[in-house]
């Protein structure tokens, strides 16, 4: 499903951090995992993927290590840092509140009296 890019812009870093919190991954693996875990709802544009990862690396929210594959190719694996986990935790809380608010607005949830 294709969402408005502005809608996804803010949550892409959180989604990437959430996926990486479960284990280190390389770039292609990360995009496939996001699609699979979101049931193809969320797709991270390839043009966005690596710039996003590099930005997260610059902010010290993820770190990278290089490993040589069996075929001799150097592969870059990304993993979440401690700072990234803290950031993820705070962003997750905000998203949860946002989701609650939206549920109330669209009538999915009933406000407590």
């Amino acid at each position, binding site marked *: 499903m294709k969402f408005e890019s502005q809608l996804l812009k803010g949550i892409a870093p959180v989604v990437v951090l959430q996926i990486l919190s479960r284990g280190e991954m*390389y*770039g*292609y*693996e990360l995009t496939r995992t996001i699609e699979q875990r979101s049931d193809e709802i969320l797709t991270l*544009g*390839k*043009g966005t993927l*690596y*710039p*996003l990862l*590099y*930005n997260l*690396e*610059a*902010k010290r929210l993820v770190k990278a290590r*290089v490993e040589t*594959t069996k*075929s001799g*190719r*150097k*592969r*870059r694996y990304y993993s979440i840092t401690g700072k990234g986990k803290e950031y993820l935790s705070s962003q997750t809380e905000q998203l949860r509140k946002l989701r609650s608010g939206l549920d109330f607005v669209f009538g999915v949830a009933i406000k407590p009296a």
Partner: protein
Amino acid sequence: MAENDKTFENLPRSAVDYINLVIKNMRYRKKTRDEVREELIDHFEVYLKDCAANAEKEQEAQRLISEFGDPKILAVLMRRAKKRCRPLWQKILVRSFATVIVIFAYLLICASWLSMGTPTVRINYAQWLTDQQRQGRDESLNAMPEINKAAELIEKTDGWTAVSDIIRQWPGDMNDAQKTALTDFLRAGDETLNSLNKVLEKPYFWADYNSGGPIIVDANSVLTISPTFAENQMRLLRSYRQIAYVLVTRINWQAYSGNIDRTISDTISLFNFAYHLEGRGLLIEQLVAVAIEGLAHREITTVLAQVDIPAAQLKHLQDELSVTYAKHEFPIDINDEKAFWYALVQQGFTDDGKGNGKMLKAGMHYFVRGWKDGIWNFLTFSYPDRQQALAQVHKMFAEGHQKFETTPWQKTGKSSTTNSANMPFMFKLLIPAYDRISVVAWRAKTQREATLTILACLRFQKEKGKFPDTLDELVKTGYLTKLPADPFSPGPLTYKKTVDGFLLYSWGENLKDDNGQVTRDEKGKPINFADTGDWVFWPVVKN
């Protein structure tokens, strides 16, 4: 190429080209580009690994390429993101270096701006200055060449070295050996001095500033300040002072010997000499002229105090001096100095043909207000233009003229109208100098008034048998045409009849009446024209 082939061996051509284009457009450090290349290749290889046929590979590669998007945009996003990955110290270093480069480039532009353009030399101001003084007159009317020749001859005259130490001494105070040396010298130089007297009767004096002047035309037809001007000028002016001293020596000797006619004629020559140099040319020349005139005044009063001169000859001298003084009402005229400044403007600015132009490096030294303004002008390209510089020159000369037209007494209590804060740096140095020079000039004027008054008083005494009771009496009886002004007081020179003569003085630079008391040094020697005490013209103050 072989290495590239190996790197991309699993990928279709379109993927290879795409990746290479992205990396090429990144324009970043090689190490980082290699890392990114490896990452992209890895992504494409994993994505295409399940494709069996080449056609399928190519198709999937195209799809992935379209998902990655425009290679230039991707390259830009990657470069920006990778730059953010730099450690802080590296970011600071790079930014600092970039800042230094930008600042340096800007300073280079600022400096280049001053070098852009060339001055247009339309007027030779050395010639202009010469023409200003010459006024189209025939060279035969010019006293200058022969005066300079006389100066050279005097230095070569036998006995000059022996007398140069005693040259201003009154002969009555000399010993026999000194008198002999003096008479020998005067005899040897008699012809030179006599011809000098004749030359000084010529009506005009002008210098040729093209040769040895302050402004010269160099080999490239560019007007420039002569590096040897100061040296040449000091040598010339030194020789003029020597002429004056030699004339003083002869005056003293003639008076001592009782040869009154020649005393008077040499005195008139000395005043003519000062007159020739005054009121024209550069200030430095005129200041020497004023000094020579001052010497002449002191000399004549010394002679009058020592020697009894008949009333008729006193009148002759008084009449001659009145005519000489009238030729230059004021001993100093700063107008000719404009040539110097016009030449600087011409040299320091371009000429757009409409009377304006921008400043060049040569103009910076003279027309910038100070180092702070200079830096501001430099950084903001806001130097004064040609018209503004000329306006400043005219303003400075107007200020200067005003100082010479107002007596020191009239200036009392008035704050200076000069707002030097907004003036170029050089002008700020000159304006106070003009203040000082104006005092010197007004002092010379005062001496003129005093000399005429002394001559009138002595004439009065010889013809009436007594000194006048007041200066008004001299005017009423026709010995003076008007009361002698004292520029340093609200009224005329102060005259007091005394038991054995009279006292004549100016209030002097302190603008106070000190009852005719002169300032003396710690040894009791009177100080001529001190800035305290009065300036006494008669009687001649002795040690």
